[in-house]
Protein backbone atom coordinates (compact mmCIF):
# COMPACT_ATOMS: atom_id res chain seq x y z
CA UNK A 1 0.00 0.00 0.00
CA UNK A 2 1.41 3.40 -0.93
CA UNK A 3 2.47 5.41 2.10
CA UNK A 4 3.88 8.59 0.62
CA UNK A 5 1.28 11.31 0.43
CA UNK A 6 0.62 12.94 -2.92
CA UNK A 7 0.65 16.40 -1.33
CA UNK A 8 4.22 15.81 -0.13
CA UNK A 9 5.58 14.98 -3.60
CA UNK A 10 6.91 17.59 -6.03
CA UNK A 11 8.58 17.53 -9.40
CA UNK A 12 12.33 17.42 -8.89
CA UNK A 13 12.17 15.45 -5.65
CA UNK A 14 14.94 12.87 -5.54
CA UNK A 15 14.89 9.21 -4.51
CA UNK A 16 18.04 7.97 -2.83
CA UNK A 17 20.66 7.80 -4.03
CA UNK A 18 21.35 4.44 -2.43
CA UNK A 19 24.76 2.86 -2.75
CA UNK A 20 24.62 -0.89 -2.88
CA UNK A 21 27.52 -3.34 -3.07
CA UNK A 22 26.59 -6.06 -5.52
CA UNK A 23 28.34 -9.19 -4.28
CA UNK A 24 28.84 -12.14 -6.60
CA UNK A 25 27.07 -14.43 -4.15
CA UNK A 26 24.05 -12.13 -4.26
CA UNK A 27 23.96 -12.38 -8.05
CA UNK A 28 24.24 -16.18 -7.90
CA UNK A 29 21.41 -16.32 -5.37
CA UNK A 30 19.26 -14.13 -7.59
CA UNK A 31 19.98 -16.18 -10.72
CA UNK A 32 18.99 -19.37 -8.92
CA UNK A 33 15.90 -17.81 -7.33
CA UNK A 34 14.87 -16.44 -10.71
CA UNK A 35 15.41 -19.79 -12.43
CA UNK A 36 18.08 -18.38 -14.77
CA UNK A 37 21.19 -20.06 -13.43
CA UNK A 38 23.15 -19.58 -16.65
CA UNK A 39 26.97 -19.67 -16.57
CA UNK A 40 27.24 -15.93 -17.23
CA UNK A 41 25.44 -15.25 -13.94
CA UNK A 42 27.36 -17.79 -11.86
CA UNK A 43 31.09 -17.31 -12.35
CA UNK A 44 33.75 -15.60 -14.44
CA UNK A 45 34.83 -18.77 -16.20
CA UNK A 46 31.33 -19.57 -17.36
CA UNK A 47 30.81 -16.01 -18.53
CA UNK A 48 34.07 -15.99 -20.50
CA UNK A 49 33.02 -19.18 -22.22
CA UNK A 50 30.02 -17.21 -23.45
CA UNK A 51 32.24 -14.42 -24.80
CA UNK A 52 31.73 -12.01 -21.93
CA UNK A 53 34.55 -10.29 -20.00
CA UNK A 54 33.39 -11.88 -16.76
CA UNK A 55 30.40 -12.67 -14.63
CA UNK A 56 27.49 -10.24 -15.07
CA UNK A 57 24.26 -9.51 -13.23
CA UNK A 58 20.90 -10.24 -14.91
CA UNK A 59 18.99 -7.27 -16.27
CA UNK A 60 15.98 -8.49 -14.34
CA UNK A 61 17.92 -8.08 -11.12
CA UNK A 62 18.49 -4.42 -11.93
CA UNK A 63 14.73 -4.01 -12.25
CA UNK A 64 14.27 -5.61 -8.85
CA UNK A 65 16.78 -3.22 -7.28
CA UNK A 66 15.03 -0.21 -8.82
CA UNK A 67 11.66 -1.35 -7.47
CA UNK A 68 13.28 -1.74 -4.04
CA UNK A 69 14.47 1.87 -4.27
CA UNK A 70 11.03 3.13 -5.32
CA UNK A 71 9.15 1.14 -2.67
CA UNK A 72 11.51 2.42 0.04
CA UNK A 73 10.38 5.90 -1.01
CA UNK A 74 6.70 5.38 -1.84
CA UNK A 75 5.68 2.32 0.12
CA UNK A 76 5.14 -1.37 -0.58
CA UNK A 77 2.99 -1.96 -3.64
CA UNK A 78 3.22 1.60 -4.93
CA UNK A 79 4.79 0.74 -8.29
CA UNK A 80 2.20 0.51 -11.06
CA UNK A 81 4.55 0.42 -14.03
CA UNK A 82 8.28 0.14 -14.63
CA UNK A 83 10.05 0.48 -17.95
CA UNK A 84 13.77 -0.03 -18.28
CA UNK A 85 16.49 0.00 -20.89
CA UNK A 86 19.60 -2.04 -20.28
CA UNK A 87 22.37 0.20 -21.65
CA UNK A 88 25.43 -1.40 -20.17
CA UNK A 89 26.60 -4.54 -18.46
CA UNK A 90 26.19 -4.62 -14.68
CA UNK A 91 29.27 -6.24 -13.18
CA UNK A 92 29.27 -7.70 -9.66
CA UNK A 93 31.80 -7.06 -6.89
CA UNK A 94 31.28 -3.33 -7.35
CA UNK A 95 29.15 -0.66 -5.75
CA UNK A 96 26.07 0.43 -7.68
CA UNK A 97 24.26 3.69 -7.11
CA UNK A 98 20.46 3.49 -7.31
CA UNK A 99 18.88 6.84 -8.17
CA UNK A 100 15.54 8.41 -9.02
CA UNK A 101 13.72 11.69 -9.44
CA UNK A 102 10.12 12.83 -9.74
CA UNK A 103 9.43 14.19 -13.23
CA UNK A 104 5.65 14.72 -13.17
CA UNK A 105 2.68 14.48 -10.84
CA UNK A 106 -0.98 13.83 -11.66
CA UNK A 107 -3.36 15.18 -9.03
CA UNK A 108 -6.44 13.51 -10.52
CA UNK A 109 -4.85 10.07 -10.52
CA UNK A 110 -2.73 10.72 -7.41
CA UNK A 111 0.30 9.32 -9.18
CA UNK A 112 3.83 10.42 -9.91
CA UNK A 113 6.11 9.72 -12.85
CA UNK A 114 9.72 8.98 -12.00
CA UNK A 115 13.00 8.69 -13.79
CA UNK A 116 15.03 5.87 -12.26
CA UNK A 117 18.51 4.68 -13.03
CA UNK A 118 21.51 2.67 -11.89
CA UNK A 119 25.00 4.11 -12.06
CA UNK A 120 28.28 2.26 -11.99
CA UNK A 121 30.97 3.26 -9.52
CA UNK A 122 32.40 5.35 -12.37
CA UNK A 123 29.15 7.28 -12.84
CA UNK A 124 28.03 5.54 -16.03
CA UNK A 125 24.27 5.01 -16.29
CA UNK A 126 24.01 1.28 -16.90
CA UNK A 127 20.24 0.98 -16.58
CA UNK A 128 17.76 3.78 -17.18
CA UNK A 129 13.99 3.75 -16.87
CA UNK A 130 10.75 5.35 -15.86
CA UNK A 131 8.13 4.35 -13.34
CA UNK A 132 4.58 5.25 -12.47
CA UNK A 133 3.88 5.30 -8.76
CA UNK A 134 0.61 5.45 -6.84
CA UNK A 135 0.57 7.84 -3.90
CA UNK A 136 -1.58 8.02 -0.79
Amino acid at each position, binding site marked *: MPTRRFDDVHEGDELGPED*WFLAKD*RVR*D*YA*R*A*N*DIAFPRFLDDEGARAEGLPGMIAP*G*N*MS*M*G*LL*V*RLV*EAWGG*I*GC*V*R*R*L*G*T*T*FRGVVLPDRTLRLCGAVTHTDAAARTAELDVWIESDEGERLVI*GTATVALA
Partner: protein
Amino acid sequence: MALEFDRSILGQEFDRVEREPVTVDEIVAFAHALGCTEPCYLEPGSGLVAHPTFVVRYRGRRFLPDSLPDPLKTRMSFDAGKDIDFGVPIRPGDRISVGAALHDVYEKTGRTGTMTFVVVRFVIRNQRGETVATIDNRLLYKD
Protein backbone atom coordinates in the same frame (compact mmCIF):
# COMPACT_ATOMS: atom_id res chain seq x y z
CA MET B 1 17.39 -3.01 -46.47
CA ALA B 2 14.29 -2.70 -44.32
CA LEU B 3 13.06 -5.85 -42.70
CA GLU B 4 9.94 -7.12 -44.44
CA PHE B 5 7.54 -9.54 -42.83
CA ASP B 6 3.86 -10.37 -42.57
CA ARG B 7 2.56 -8.06 -39.87
CA SER B 8 -0.46 -10.28 -39.32
CA ILE B 9 1.79 -12.39 -37.07
CA LEU B 10 1.79 -9.59 -34.50
CA GLY B 11 -0.47 -10.20 -31.55
CA GLN B 12 -0.87 -13.92 -32.19
CA GLU B 13 -0.27 -15.96 -29.05
CA PHE B 14 2.45 -18.51 -29.81
CA ASP B 15 2.88 -20.07 -26.40
CA ARG B 16 0.89 -20.66 -23.22
CA VAL B 17 1.98 -22.51 -20.13
CA GLU B 18 0.62 -23.10 -16.65
CA ARG B 19 3.12 -23.37 -13.86
CA GLU B 20 3.17 -25.32 -10.63
CA PRO B 21 1.73 -23.49 -7.61
CA VAL B 22 3.99 -20.78 -6.20
CA THR B 23 5.75 -21.82 -3.01
CA VAL B 24 6.69 -19.85 0.08
CA ASP B 25 10.33 -20.85 -0.40
CA GLU B 26 10.40 -19.41 -3.93
CA ILE B 27 8.96 -16.10 -2.78
CA VAL B 28 11.31 -15.78 0.18
CA ALA B 29 14.44 -16.80 -1.75
CA PHE B 30 13.70 -14.21 -4.41
CA ALA B 31 13.25 -11.42 -1.87
CA HIS B 32 16.39 -12.44 0.02
CA ALA B 33 18.43 -12.29 -3.18
CA LEU B 34 17.30 -8.71 -3.78
CA GLY B 35 18.23 -7.71 -0.25
CA CYS B 36 14.63 -7.03 0.79
CA THR B 37 14.00 -6.59 4.50
CA GLU B 38 10.22 -6.02 4.54
CA PRO B 39 8.29 -8.73 6.43
CA CYS B 40 5.62 -8.95 3.71
CA TYR B 41 8.26 -10.35 1.34
CA LEU B 42 10.06 -12.59 3.83
CA GLU B 43 7.87 -13.90 6.64
CA PRO B 44 5.68 -16.93 5.88
CA GLY B 45 2.06 -16.36 6.77
CA SER B 46 -1.13 -14.87 5.45
CA GLY B 47 0.55 -11.55 4.69
CA LEU B 48 3.31 -12.95 2.49
CA VAL B 49 3.38 -11.68 -1.11
CA ALA B 50 6.00 -11.93 -3.81
CA HIS B 51 8.20 -8.98 -4.63
CA PRO B 52 6.66 -7.22 -7.66
CA THR B 53 9.51 -8.23 -9.98
CA PHE B 54 9.01 -11.90 -9.09
CA VAL B 55 6.88 -11.86 -12.25
CA VAL B 56 9.98 -11.87 -14.44
CA ARG B 57 10.53 -15.51 -13.45
CA TYR B 58 7.68 -16.48 -15.70
CA ARG B 59 8.48 -17.44 -19.22
CA GLY B 60 6.98 -19.86 -21.65
CA ARG B 61 8.44 -23.01 -23.12
CA ARG B 62 9.39 -21.05 -26.23
CA PHE B 63 10.81 -17.57 -26.09
CA LEU B 64 10.21 -16.70 -29.74
CA PRO B 65 7.57 -17.75 -32.28
CA ASP B 66 8.25 -19.91 -35.29
CA SER B 67 6.80 -17.06 -37.34
CA LEU B 68 9.73 -14.77 -36.46
CA PRO B 69 10.98 -13.15 -39.70
CA ASP B 70 13.59 -15.42 -41.29
CA PRO B 71 16.50 -12.93 -41.20
CA LEU B 72 16.27 -12.86 -37.42
CA LYS B 73 16.14 -16.56 -36.74
CA THR B 74 19.86 -17.13 -36.99
CA ARG B 75 21.08 -13.93 -35.36
CA MET B 76 22.04 -13.47 -31.74
CA SER B 77 19.85 -11.14 -29.71
CA PHE B 78 20.43 -9.10 -26.57
CA ASP B 79 17.97 -8.23 -23.82
CA ALA B 80 17.48 -4.49 -24.37
CA GLY B 81 14.96 -3.93 -21.60
CA LYS B 82 11.49 -4.55 -20.29
CA ASP B 83 8.30 -2.65 -19.62
CA ILE B 84 6.14 -4.10 -16.86
CA ASP B 85 2.59 -3.14 -15.95
CA PHE B 86 1.98 -4.58 -12.51
CA GLY B 87 -1.37 -6.07 -11.52
CA VAL B 88 -2.37 -8.03 -8.45
CA PRO B 89 0.43 -9.44 -6.27
CA ILE B 90 1.46 -13.09 -6.35
CA ARG B 91 0.79 -15.11 -3.20
CA PRO B 92 1.82 -18.61 -2.13
CA GLY B 93 -0.29 -21.26 -3.80
CA ASP B 94 -1.12 -19.15 -6.84
CA ARG B 95 -1.16 -21.06 -10.09
CA ILE B 96 0.34 -18.80 -12.71
CA SER B 97 -0.25 -19.00 -16.44
CA VAL B 98 1.82 -17.24 -19.06
CA GLY B 99 0.72 -16.34 -22.56
CA ALA B 100 3.30 -15.06 -25.05
CA ALA B 101 2.75 -13.15 -28.27
CA LEU B 102 4.96 -11.33 -30.72
CA HIS B 103 3.95 -7.73 -29.99
CA ASP B 104 6.09 -5.66 -32.33
CA VAL B 105 9.06 -5.71 -34.67
CA TYR B 106 10.71 -2.43 -35.63
CA GLU B 107 14.00 -0.98 -36.76
CA LYS B 108 16.07 1.97 -35.64
CA THR B 109 19.10 3.43 -37.35
CA GLY B 110 21.79 5.03 -35.24
CA ARG B 111 25.47 5.82 -35.34
CA THR B 112 26.39 2.16 -35.15
CA GLY B 113 24.06 1.03 -37.90
CA THR B 114 20.62 -0.46 -38.08
CA MET B 115 19.18 -2.26 -35.10
CA THR B 116 16.09 -4.42 -35.11
CA PHE B 117 13.95 -4.69 -32.02
CA VAL B 118 11.60 -7.60 -31.38
CA VAL B 119 9.06 -7.10 -28.61
CA VAL B 120 7.56 -10.21 -27.03
CA ARG B 121 4.59 -9.59 -24.75
CA PHE B 122 3.98 -11.90 -21.82
CA VAL B 123 0.59 -11.72 -20.12
CA ILE B 124 0.73 -13.34 -16.70
CA ARG B 125 -2.43 -14.31 -14.86
CA ASN B 126 -3.32 -16.17 -11.69
CA GLN B 127 -5.84 -18.98 -11.24
CA ARG B 128 -8.68 -16.46 -10.80
CA GLY B 129 -7.95 -14.93 -14.19
CA GLU B 130 -6.60 -11.75 -12.61
CA THR B 131 -3.74 -10.08 -14.43
CA VAL B 132 -0.57 -10.27 -12.38
CA ALA B 133 1.57 -8.44 -14.91
CA THR B 134 2.00 -7.60 -18.56
CA ILE B 135 5.63 -7.64 -19.62
CA ASP B 136 6.97 -6.32 -22.90
CA ASN B 137 10.44 -7.75 -23.40
CA ARG B 138 12.56 -5.91 -26.00
CA LEU B 139 15.17 -7.96 -27.79
CA LEU B 140 17.84 -6.19 -29.81
CA TYR B 141 19.33 -7.60 -33.00
CA LYS B 142 22.33 -5.75 -34.43
CA ASP B 143 23.28 -5.97 -38.10
